[in-house]
């Protein structure tokens, strides 16, 4: 197991390098630079800006300097668009926000999704089942950029219950709408997966045996059915995590939460090379890490799997 984890982490290094080089080149090929602006800059100012940010070096040297900055000093460089701040500061400000509402949405989605799925499977083909399936499919196809403004309309304008946006780590009322808007569609997917996995397990021989032995139904479900039914759910969690970060773009735009999703889109549009690279690397590293965690978890639940 340990060797497996080490091997996976070793693959992470070339992956990140590839990601850095690819994004770096792509970004620099795009028309317009960070200092392209309406009033063309005097050549001397432009030269100074380029020198200050190291943009006057050849591309390969820029990449090497950039990577060296990260490896040696954990320094992602200065932001081009926010001259008062470094990329480290920007990420340190935005990432905890994304992480907070992201993980809350994640936990809520898993808890409610599994619950809904189990209920639907136990009372298969009943009204509850149809209700659960209906809710989950409906929630799955409603884009969160439609859901978000509807939430603001309902909770802020009509009922005045929640602030319409903004962020505070101390006040959970700011968290609720982002969590709902982000978590709903994942809750729905998880419910669907849980339901079908659960149905399959409940129909299997060892459950029949357990029931035949007269074991009480709740014990059958908790002891014998739930654990194997969780396997497909777990393998789904990796992709969920990644798409939640992508989904945070919508959350940041509608709820002004100040997370890294919006920071990424802005940096790509504004050619803020350093921020764009910083966020890409962060998300890439998290993706790798999370996929690894999911695999380890999978192996832990299902001892049949050997690495």
């Amino acid at each position, binding site marked *: 197991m340990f060797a497996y984890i080490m091997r996976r982490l070793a*693959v*992470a290094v*070339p*992956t990140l390098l*590839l*990601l850095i080089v*690819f*994004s770096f080149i*792509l*970004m620099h*090929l*795009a028309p317009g630079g960070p200092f392209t602006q309406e009033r063309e800059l005097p050549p001397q100012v432009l030269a100074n800006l380029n020198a200050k940010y190291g943009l006057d070096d050849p591309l390969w040297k820029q990449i090497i300097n950039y990577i060296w900055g990260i490896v040696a000093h954990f320094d992602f460089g200065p932001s081009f668009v926010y001259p008062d701040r470094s990329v480290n500061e920007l990420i340190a400000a935005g990432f905890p926000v994304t992480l907070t509402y992201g993980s809350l949405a994640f936990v809520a989605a898993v808890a409610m999704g599994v619950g809904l799925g189990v209920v639907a499977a136990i009372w298969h083909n009943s009204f509850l089942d149809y209700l659960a399936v209906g809710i989950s*499919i*409906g929630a*799955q*196809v*409603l*884009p969160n*950029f*439609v859901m978000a*403004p*509807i939430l603001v*309309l309902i909770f802020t*304008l009509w009922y005045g219950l929640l602030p319409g946006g903004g962020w505070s780590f101390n006040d959970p009322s700011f968290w609720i709408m982002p969590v709902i808007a982000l978590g709903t*569609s*994942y809750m729905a*997917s998880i419910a669907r*997966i849980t339901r*079908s996995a659960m149905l*399959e397990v409940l*129909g299997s021989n060892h459950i029949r045996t357990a029931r035949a032995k007269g074991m009480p139904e709740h014990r059958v479900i908790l002891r014998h059915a739930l654990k194997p039914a969780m*396997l*497909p759910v777990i*393998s*789904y969690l990796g*992709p*969920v995590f*990644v*798409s939640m*970060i*992508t989904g945070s*773009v*919508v959350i940041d735009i509608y709820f002004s939460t100040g997370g890294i999703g919006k920071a*990424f*889109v802005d940096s*790509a*549009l504004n050619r803020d090379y350093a921020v*764009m690279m910083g*966020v*890409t690397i962060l*998300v*890439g590293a998290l*993706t*790798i890490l999370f*996929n690894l965690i999911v695999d380890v978890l999978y192996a832990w639940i299902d001892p049949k799997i050997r690495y």
Partner: protein
Amino acid sequence: MVIQQDKMQSLAARMAQDEVKGRSPWADARKRFFRNKAAMTGLIILIAVALFALLGGYFAQWSNEDLDFAVMGQVATMGAPSLENGHYFGTDDLGRDLFARTVQGTQISLMVGIVGAAIAVIVGTLYGATAGYVGGRTDQIMMRAVDILMSIPYMFVLILLLVMFGRSIAMLFLGIGLISWLDMSRIVRGQTLSLKNREFIEAARATGVPSWKIILRHIVPNLLGVVAVYATLLVPLMILTESFISFLGLGVQEPLTSWGALISEGAGTMNYGTLWQLAFPLFFFVITLFGFFFVGDGLRDALDPKDR
């Protein structure tokens, strides 16, 4: 939203097995599929939406780009759905006919979904089959490459691509298609490995059929079920991705539109008394996604029945 990989693997295993037994899984599957009510409903919906996209244009009284000056500027009062002035679905903020625009948006969205899924399935199948069939070091390198690519945050790369190359349908197809072939290639490779040593493949190899021909003639056809199911389930994911890209303003160029673009415009103005601008595109979007899910699930269950 994601495709359940474990079920796809189970399906792939079954499809490979049937070939050996020498009976086609398709005839039984068809029966099972037609008995599945949800899947049939989905199929009917999809056919209806496809007809709408193909033929809707003939019923439109307006083109998708003409401005109706009688309505423009007072859309909330004059632009509501109406049979009299020919705007069956009402108009958008500029006074353009929403019916014509929904028809045209449906075409683009379906096209992005289908072409994107096709690219993903073709690339994934060929890549996986090649890796699995050739085996050895090539296989290792190819699969390690997939491992690496899997850890790339794709939406980010897609945004970068669109920013860099500008918005175009071709870029959308390519970008969206390239996102999702990785899982496909893994499943195909796994099944290719198990097929590779079967008698009929060995026989083909012994008679000197070139490798590429074996892959195309003997391996790929055995995976057709997986491919079909996978493609059906990929289409809605592609459509969702496109809608997100359109929301970011990186979608197709005006006057062309797509569901994503129409929905995000409609969502912006939903509190201003022009709810139809959201309702119609969203309706088609939602029923189509439903349709694809039901048909995809139904196909899979039909091809890989658990109650065997």
